[in-house]
């Protein structure tokens, strides 16, 4: 018979009793209380793992009684042996810094891999199975929201709008392999500046400033081809889904910090989101370059406009990690290579 010191509670009153627990070879327990001796067969015991170096190890008895065994290596050895061959293996994993480091590597690699490969694949899977009607409705709603805040009515002459729209429809939109109907919209916007947007559902918005900044219509057509690249790849919708996925993952990981501290998780999420965004920008650039090649337009039309944009807004530059677009330099390099 081997024994260990423990604090015993009978589960009916709050009286603690210091006892000695004795175990026979098959794990049956004998508890010596002041007034009586209690016998518990092995099957009536639930021996829990000890979690934390200073926390007691608990044993639940089938009649509702509990024993708290103070931390002690000798008792741990005995109780591990009683709870079967694998007893305490998680505790041993948790005890070592080196193993914790290995766990950290496993977590980081698998989460990064999932975010990098799994989530985009999942977003594509879901996007491919979502009826276009849903995405079109989403795009219509988005444009409505934008019109109430960031976007104003275009100040471009109607004639100019018509020319650009015709060029867009005949030279860019018609060749696009997309289940979505492409539609060009003109808007003015102080907040967005010289830019073009691809909304879910096939709406492409051209902001007045970029039309004025362009020195040749081919520049605008390459920009429009870039936006059509976003539409064909359903990037806006996929990004929405990925954002949702990242939020879910962050909640799962940080789930046990309550309330506002989870705001801190917004930062990595922001960085990851920008990363996806840059990936889609490159894809859309590739689409625009392919379009330019097929239509005998110089690839430099797009990068010329981008460089002019950068010159115009030579303000605060955003570090690449936070930026939603690849740098113009990188995009020019991409235009020069990869034919």
């Amino acid at each position: 018979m081997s024994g260990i010191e423990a604090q015993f509670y009978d589960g009916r009153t709050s009286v603690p009793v210091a006892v000695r627990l004795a175990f026979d070879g098959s794990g049956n327990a004998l508890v010596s209380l002041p007034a009586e001796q209690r016998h518990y067969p092995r099957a009536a015991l639930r021996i829990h793992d000890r979690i934390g170096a200073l926390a007691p190890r608990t044993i639940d008895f089938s009649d509702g009684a509990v024993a708290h065994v103070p931390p002690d290596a000798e008792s741990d050895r005995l109780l591990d042996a009683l709870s079967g061959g694998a007893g305490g293996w998680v505790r041993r994993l948790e005890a070592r810094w080196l193993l914790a480091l290995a766990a950290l590597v496993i977590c980081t690699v698998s989460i990064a891999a999932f975010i990098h490969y799994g989530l985009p694949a999942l977003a594509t899977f879901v996007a491919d199975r979502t009826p276009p009607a849903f995405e079109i409705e989403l795009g219509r709603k988005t444009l409505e929201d934008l019109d109430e805040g960031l976007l104003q009515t275009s100040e471009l002459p109607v004639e100019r709008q018509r020319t650009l729209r015709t060029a867009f429809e005949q030279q860019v939109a018609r060749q696009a392999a997309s289940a979505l109907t492409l539609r060009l919209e003109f808007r003015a916007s102080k907040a967005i500046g010289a830019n073009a947007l691809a909304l879910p559902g096939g709406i492409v918005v051209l902001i007045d400033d970029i039309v004025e900044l362009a020195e040749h219509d081919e520049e605008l057509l390459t920009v429009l081809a870039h936006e059509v690249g976003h539409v064909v790849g359903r990037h806006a919708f996929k990004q929405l889904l990925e954002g949702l996925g990242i939020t879910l993952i962050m909640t799962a990981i940080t789930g046990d910090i309550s309330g506002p501290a989870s705001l801190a998780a917004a930062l990595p999420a922001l960085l990851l989101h920008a990363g996806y965004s840059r990936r889609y920008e490159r894809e859309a650039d590739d689409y625009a370059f392919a379009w330019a090649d097929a239509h005998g337009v110089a690839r430099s039309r797009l990068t010329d406009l981008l460089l002019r944009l950068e010159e115009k807004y030579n303000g605060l530059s955003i570090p690449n990690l936070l930026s939603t677009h690849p740098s113009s330099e990188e995009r020019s390099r991409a235009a020069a290579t990869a034919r």
Partner: protein
Amino acid sequence: MQDTNTDSQPELQRIEFRGTGGEYFRIWIVNLALTILTLGIYSAWAKVRRLKYFYGSTQLAGHAFDYHGNPIAILKGRLVAVLVLVAYSALAQLWPLLGAALVIAFWLAIPWIVTRAQMFQMRMTSYRGLRWDFEPDYGGAFKAMLLAPLATALSLGLLFPWATRLRYRWLIENTAYGKTFCKLDIGLKPFVMALLYTLPLIVAGALLVTLGGGVMSLLTAGGGDGPPAPDAVGRTLVWMLVGFYLPLIFVFYLVLAVWKRTVMNATLPATTLGPVRLHCKLSARWLAWIYVSNLVGIVLTLGLFMPWAKVRAAKYQLECMGYVASGPVDEFHASETERTSAVGEEIGELMDVDISL
């Protein structure tokens, strides 16, 4: 031997928290890795280990708390909760009108969810071998969770102290240790004071945010014909972070610290459990410091500081609490508890229903 002490001056028994950040980091990361390797199934076991660690590390008058949640019950609860959520979003997607009806249904279900979650949590907690308990007072929950907030909104916030006291009273007076129920004897004054202390901070915060927002829009709009960078979105995000979120978070924590200190320091000492009176003496300054420094630590380490942050917050708050007994504490008796499913708790957790003190 201990019984001879009961005649002398009642002594304050403080909670001692024995957990450390390093230890919890290892527990957290190992269990997270196991959860990932088992595609999420282990998460229920991870939750039990995490809670057992925190409960077992909490000692009051030489006795540790214990958590008895069963991983299988928690796993089942999670599955049901996920199914409910998936069914809800699928239905809401297909029939938007039904979705709106379901939102109302969920809102009406909040008292049930909160009560079930509280029951599960209390019944899975033991101290000195006795389980805690929570009375399923659904009527009280309906009043405290739905009617009181509604009345507060209708009174333009005037009834807020009253509504808060109602919620605490529901939470505390339905809680029992064994078969002994907690009693809360408290006036409205502490809740009025908590509001008066935090109101100036909230107003200051609102001013700060307006100012930050103004500066931000100036910086991003650029003014005149020099509109913002082409990368307006990224740039706006940076300025939102610096000019808007950081001050907002800071003020938020300050308000939270002052509110928590005022309410907890009044509510717990007004709570009795048989011969026992609870004790709590939090400092708003320390609370705010812990919140803010934890946040900075978490952001700078991309989340790795989280376990240390959690242990620091728990240790400080728990060690400010304790009890004073005016009679023997050996005479509490167990009640006959039935089994409680973890469904309410897991739905609550997924939907972020929070009722903590």
